[in-house]
């Protein structure tokens, strides 16, 4: 079964960008969310295998959304998406429990490497 992804980003351009990268590789984009509040709601509804999470978003930022989702499901696999220059936010998100991160502008090969390694790491009992 195709891996189901929830894409969270406030910029439609970035969501589209990621969506195309995922679809081209046979992933299923289960849903999209444009802020942290929506992300938590959609996570509950869709139970995706993987979430890509932007950090700086309106209403609720990606770090808080990461904490909220992990509180619901400690096994959630969350890849932080960050623009360059937010290293401290990325490190904060990783310490909050995010699995890994990717940096905008996205390079497909980089996104896929990170996602595939994260999926593999998750399958191994930690």
């Amino acid at each position, binding site marked *: 079964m195709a891996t189901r992804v929830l894409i969270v980003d406030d910029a439609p351009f970035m969501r589209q960008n990621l969506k195309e990268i995922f679809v081209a590789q046979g992933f299923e984009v289960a849903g999209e969310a444009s802020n942290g509040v929506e992300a938590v709601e959609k996570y509950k509804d869709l139970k995706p295998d993987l979430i890509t999470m932007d950090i700086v978003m309106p209403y609720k930022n990606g770090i808080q959304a990461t904490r909220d989702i992990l509180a619901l499901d400690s096994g959630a696999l969350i890849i932080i998406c960050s623009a360059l220059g937010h290293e*401290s936010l990325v490190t904060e998100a990783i310490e909050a429990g995010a699995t890994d991160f990717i940096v905008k502008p996205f390079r497909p090969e980089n996104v896929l490497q990170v996602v595939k390694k994260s999926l593999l790491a998750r399958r191994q009992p930690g």
Partner: protein
Amino acid sequence: MDMSKYKPLFLSEAGEHLDGLETELVALERAPGEQERIHEAFRHLHSVKSMAASMDYEHLAHLAHRLEDLVSPHRDTGAPFAAEEIDLLLAGLDALRASLRCVAADQPEPELPAGLMADLDTRLRAAGPARVRARSSPASPGPAAPAAPVEPSAQAPVAGALYTVEAQVIAECSLPGARALVLFQRLAALGEVVGCEPSLEELRLGNLPERRVRLRVRSQRGADELRRAVEGVPELAAQRVAPAAEGGSPRSPQPAPAASAPAGPSPPEPGPLPAPTPGSSVRVRAELLDFFVDAVAELLGLRSHLEALAEQRDDPALQEGVRQLGTLARRLQDRVMQVRMVPAATLTGRLPRLVRDLARARGLEVELQVSGEEVELDRGLVEALDTPLLHLVRNALDHGLETPAERRAWGKEPVGRLRLHLERRQDRVQLSLEDDGRGIDPALVLARAEAVGLLPPGAVLGERAAQELVFLPGFSIRTEASESAGRGVGLDVVRTALQRLGGRIELESTPGRGTRFVLDLPLTLAILHVLLVQAGEHLLALPSARVLRALTVRPSQLSQGPGGPEVLVGSRRLPFTPLLALLGERLGPPPAAQEAILVGPPEGEASLALGVDRVTGHREAALRAAGALLGRLGPYGGSTVLGDGRPVLILDVDALIARAARAAPERPGEA
């Protein structure tokens, strides 16, 4: 870490955040306690601060930090802003913009304005020490996260063997500190990390000298499991996991019994490309997009060329192939153009601030309403429309809207309204700007036009025609130039700019009630339909949108009119000029039959017939805008390359009409 390659991205993104901040601040000035906007303002400042800091722009980061300090307590308590705070924030925003401009121009960061910094200090001090202290940890956005249980010393000792893990983060990784931290976390999940070099604090700050990290891990899992965990971390090269001697240094002298192979080859780096233009808001390299657009247009051109060749052969398979190529090229064009589209908000974003500042300077009260900002436009169009739109807005505040006192005297609401609306209509976009100000008084305009010599005394014009006089070059309703409208620059400039974009502008105005300008434009500028014509040795292109008709003329249809040669078209006589004459070329003997291309003002009737040898076809062409040089060489608006590789100049129809008009009075003398 070399950050210079991220500079264009930084400039574009920081610029957008500042635009967003401006929108929020101007809105907050009216509704100072709107929580959502306070949060947004904070978010923008915070992003600018953290980006600037990571780019090592110290002053920029410092100023953004101070402004953030000013916003932060409002965000925490929900207290509304005082008017002086908004003023300070706007002044700070301007200073941030000025710094960005210097950075964009590759100049050193300017010193921060001392007055502003002093005012900020005073304000922050007045608010109490808590405010100043609030941001001691510069990049942490909210309240500090509860300490994660990963501090080396924070845990009870864990039994198990001691391992040394070393890894090198690959050069392509943009956040090496975060990458090392991922490794740290994965190992912490398998045991206890008892040593880390550089320290965890350094990693959090993004510091990873030589991109190398060394960790000591105590774990009950075997080396293989640790190794698998390390291999599960992307962007690492030359990692190794080895049992360490108890109490030994992390730099274990023991050779690794089974050093894992370096990670696979690093992802291929795309070839060198020119740096993207700062300020473009599409998050892909703008040059790359332009290349796609050019390539697609050339593909379309090539298709036209192939179609012509295929038609000459009786080969249905070839013709079908060419047809399919055409369909595919067209689909590709649609997609490529989509990517070039940006929301109109990019264009309208700075208007609220502009309106606020102008209104304040002129003692007006103005409420700006913008709708249709989500309409998407070609980014070239957004750039080209920027100046005309600003000019129209300034015009509305300089000439249209009245002061509150005047408005009350007229029985109007004291606050003037300015409405901007954007709407997409198939492949065109319509933009209207409407004010409820004094409107254009035809009698006043007429008198003014006579006074400045644009009309002979006693001229009679209909109401609408009189109002349209405001578009004439040199027309100005006020004798003294106002600060922003400038001297001698009027609506004619706006109209000319729109005509260049293949658009038009119309006005509706009711004296005493207000004025509405309607701009109608093509959605995209990059691909142009052209008519190819042969004139002497030259193959030239005319924008199809400006060609009303092409017809074959015989010498018998030509006659000598009062202003020069004329051609009879239906019942009308139009001035006829050989295209070569307008290009300053010498004319050969008149051919027995030639083609006349009828052109005229945008959306107007034909006003000129251009003589050419023949029409050779029509194409879709990737427009390359004329540089300054090309514009000086002659009446050219740009160039393109045909499918067969031939470069072709695209004629500027307005410039041709102007040249013909200039040449006309001389002709009777020559004849």
